[in-house]
């Protein structure tokens, strides 16, 4: 059994697009043996979240700093499952 990884998806309010990112991630890990827990956050409080991987967009990263010791995955579009897969899977593999 692989290690449980906590992913935090970050958007402006933590209400809309970060939840779409959550859905994309669930699609990606479905059928693999990665164990992930996903939480959504807004840029204002994201720094205070605990997690192994922080996922956000290239624009939003200008507005917050991920906490020390976490991995950052940047995508240009939360809704693009293929891009998310390409960026996220190597990091997941490394941490698991």
């Amino acid at each position: 059994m692989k290690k449980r990884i906590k992913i935090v998806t970050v958007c402006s309010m933590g209400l809309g697009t970060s939840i779409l990112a959550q859905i994309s991630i669930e699609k990606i890990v479905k059928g693999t043996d990665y164990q992930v827990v996903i939480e959504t956050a807004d840029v204002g409080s994201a720094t205070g979240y605990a997690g192994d991987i922080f996922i956000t967009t290239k624009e939003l990263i200008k507005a917050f700093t991920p906490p020390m010791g976490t991995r950052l995955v940047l995508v240009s579009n939360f809704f693009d499952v293929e891009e998310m897969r390409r960026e996220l899977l190597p990091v997941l593999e490394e941490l698991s």
Partner: protein
Amino acid sequence: METVSNALEFFVFQVLAQAPVFMGLVAIVGLLLQKKTAREVIEGFLRTLIGMYAFSAGAGLIFNIIAPINEMLKPTMSTVGTYALGEPAFAVAMEHVAQTAVLSFMLGWIIHILLVRIFRKTFKAIFLTLHHMLFDAALVNLFLVFVMKFSGLGLIITAAILCSLYWTISPTIMYHFSKKFNGDNFTLAHKEMIGVTIASLIAPYIGDPIKEDADKLNLPGWLSMFQDVNLTMAITMPIFFVIMGIIVVRTANPAALEVLNSTIGGQNWVVWLILAGIQMAAGIAILIFGLRVFVAALLPAFKGISEKLIPGAIPALDCPVFYSLSPMGTVLGFIGSSVAGILSAIFLLLIKAPLFVYPTLVIAFFDGGVIGVFANKLGGWKAALIGSFIGGLLFHLGVLWINPFTGPLATSGFQFSGSDPAIFWSAVFTAFKWVGGLFGAG
């Protein structure tokens, strides 16, 4: 039989009547539909309860601030201030129409799915911005309950039909414009159909989207700070409150000064107002935190169902997905709508309007930003500025039109935001009231 009806009565009045519990049970439905494990369902239920109680606490915090400030404004300028922002407006609505609003939201979404499924040739997009659907349902419920005196099943069904028509038609119109630059990827589900439509229609006459593309301009990077709702609030609210404070102190109405003195209790009024503005930001942060778990529990279920029932439908999503298509269009849209908001506020003060609308820079960022993206993609940077300026005028000044339709929300200091509540729903409610008048209702 009696024990059964007693148990049912207990369940309905003691358990379901508590809005947080009710929302928690709705979240359970969403999680079960996603085939989550028992542990995840219980976790989701409890987290929704925590979130909804946090939501009320955040609402309490901001009302403790906005109430005394409005008490001071009333005798000073015979006006009350209102701030157009969905989250606190929804919190007010939830104190009055929680159950019926959530039920009409769910029924409305089912009707929406059926409409798209049946009329696939006409309606192509599925509305997936769940928190705005909750806000729409709450707004329509307030109108039907407090203006039209609807109740019970008739209320839920009428609200569900009105909302489902909007959720079906609005993203299809947005798709008509967005397909020109975004194809079939996704389209917009946001309360800005009117603003985006106007900007998209005039944009081609203003400029050339290729030659005058905003994304070829170099704009300062610090503007991205406004991505953070809490920071935007914390920067702008103290400024607006201090300006209001100066007006109150200068006018020196005795009743207003008494409210001011008893509220600040010996503290310096400027310091108090600055910190009050920052506490508003804190309150909004708590509101958003509270809503998040509920939305996260339902949205994946909604998306899963629509994909299963209507494969190939175009997802209509919240405005931030558009920002990456044109980051500079977003920034220009923010600027255009902010200027419109500030000019609207000055205009309302000068004509001594009975309702003062604070410039909502949060909405200028979200709604103005998405108008900027559409307008830039269809007419370049000048179109982004002009389109978002027009949108900004609509969603600030239009608050005066929607406000009387919203019952207790009208005097709460908050109102739903965006040009669709301000213009579209105001028009629908006006027509509804007129038709109702013909039949002797309302």
